[in-house]
């Protein structure tokens, strides 16, 4: 074989080797979740079995236990309620703020926008001590409503920033035309800007929801009653009895909670990136 051909084959092999490496690295823990959640316990806890596939027939036992014997459905419902409420609060505050910062407040608006975004970087682990006192004063300790109150502190900055970029990309002539036609400034925002920004609003809804699902620190700090936990916290901390981990159930719960977030991210990834990089790439 000529030397160039050998080199080309080698290059192809190493390229697909690299693809395989990244594929396995990213996907294996999820494959591990999947196969664990469908395995019999006798199969799971036997070191002589080959762990990568089923040695006993697959079972739905772990899912059945999860839905019938644990608070899993309550956690699902809690997460749904928290997500919906936080999304509503975020939209009502971030939408007008983003519009105002993009259109009305001039150069100060830019600075204010950056200021709001920087609060997204203030970490929960710095704020959880004073916030737990605030929550105690409000009588919300150990309740999922504390999370509804606190989660907008990071969803509002993030979504304001995201929507700001969105409004800036929208030509202002549309609203100006509406104002010339007799619409008030506020009316132009309500009747023109909002309907035209539906794709941006949809992005915000999806991301607010996924951000609330991903959050762990505040939930861990403020909620310890089992029936008030959101799904992420419940699955990660509540399926352990003493020292015994219910691996099948934990992996089944983690799988169910992961799927919607994974799908949402893949659909809206580009918007997320342009959101956090502030349109640095275009």
């Amino acid at each position: 074989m000529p030397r160039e051909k050998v080199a080309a084959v080698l290059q192809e092999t190493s390229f697909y080797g690299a693809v395989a490496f990244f594929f396995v690295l990213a996907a294996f823990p999820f494959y591990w979740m999947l196969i664990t959640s469908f395995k019999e316990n006798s199969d799971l806890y036997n070191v002589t079995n080959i762990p990568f596939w089923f040695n006993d027939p697959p079972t739905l036992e772990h899912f059945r236990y999860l839905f019938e014997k644990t608070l899993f459905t309550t956690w699902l419902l809690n997460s749904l309620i928290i997500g919906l409420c936080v999304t509503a609060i975020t939209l009502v505050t971030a939408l007008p703020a983003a519009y105002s910062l993009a259109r009305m407040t001039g150069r100060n608006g830019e600075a204010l926008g950056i200021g709001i975004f920087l609060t997204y970087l203030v970490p929960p682990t710095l704020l959880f001590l004073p916030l737990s006192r605030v929550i105690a004063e409000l009588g919300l300790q150990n309740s999922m409503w504390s999370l509804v109150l606190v989660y907008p502190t990071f969803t509002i900055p993030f979504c304001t920033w995201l929507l700001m970029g969105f409004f800036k990309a929208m030509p202002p002539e549309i609203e100006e035309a509406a104002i010339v036609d007799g619409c008030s400034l506020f009316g132009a925002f309500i009747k023109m800007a909002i309907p035209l920004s539906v794709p941006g609003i949809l992005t915000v809804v999806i991301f607010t929801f996924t951000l609330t699902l991903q959050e762990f620190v505040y939930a861990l700090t403020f909620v310890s009653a089992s029936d008030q936990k959101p799904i992420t916290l419940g699955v990660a901390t509540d399926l352990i009895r003493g020292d015994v981990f219910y691996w099948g159930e934990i992996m089944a719960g983690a799988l169910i909670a992961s799927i919607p977030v994974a799908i949402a991210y893949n659909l809206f990834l580009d918007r997320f990136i342009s959101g956090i990089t502030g349109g640095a790439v275009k």
Partner: protein
Amino acid sequence: MVAIAESVPKPHTRFRFILDRRDVLGSLLVAPAILYVLLLVGVPFLMAVYYSVSAYTIYDPSWSFVGLANFEQIIADPVFRQTLYNTFIFTFGSQILGLILGKFGALVLLRPFPGRKLVRALIILPWAVPIALATVAWQWMFDSLYSVINWTLIALGIITRSEAPNWLGNQDLAMLSVIIVNAWRFFPFAIVIFLAGITSIPQDVLDAATVDGAGFWRRNYQIILPMILPITAIGLIFGIVFTFTDLSIVFLMTMGGPVGATSVLGFAGFQTGIVSGDVSHGAAISLFMLPVLLVVVVGMLRFIRRREI
């Protein structure tokens, strides 16, 4: 004309007049968001600063001022110095590993190949899925008895069962484990950031360099890398901030152990301030994150300003 103007009720006119003033309406629209953030981020932040110089605990909620005594006490504590050191190791170890994986992953995904879309979608997963859930999966993979990693190493004949490592039970391996999980969580983000940067480079710049005789590595390090530096910087800022202040990975995988080997600032602040109820010392521990955050924020502001010019 006059008749029409008079037919409009007066309060309504004034209301409309306010809503039509650009500056007034502008501040009205932005006010709820600013207020929310001020009340629930700004005020708590100041409270955290005050806690750290007070003697506040949940058993003795007095606000007496003690100056820098809390800071002096925690700095004198070797356990805390270990925690501070761990936090830096954890942050920089996982960021470097994540960036290397991200750069090579981006190079791989840049080239078209069959199934690229599927591979890309799967590679995003570690970053998209709630980290607490993924961490639990890793904890199961690092299990002392049923670790699939050890099983594979034994099956490949690299180690025997008796010398199989206890990943989360050995001080060095536990640190390595949490670094691996955090790097694994961030590398898809790094890939996406690198890809966004590379694809934004105009092709003619690269073509011109190729014509001038620049090879693969030279194009990579003298053209692509400097051009994607700004966006990489933003990605790194996010990575550093979220890693330096993280709590969930350590909390779920090692509980700071064994013997404090993986305790990081966020975790120590949680243990002291929330679990033990010593709020003032917990706040002082958490505040050690502030210098790093400030450096990062200043860097970010400078970068944003430069971009505008």
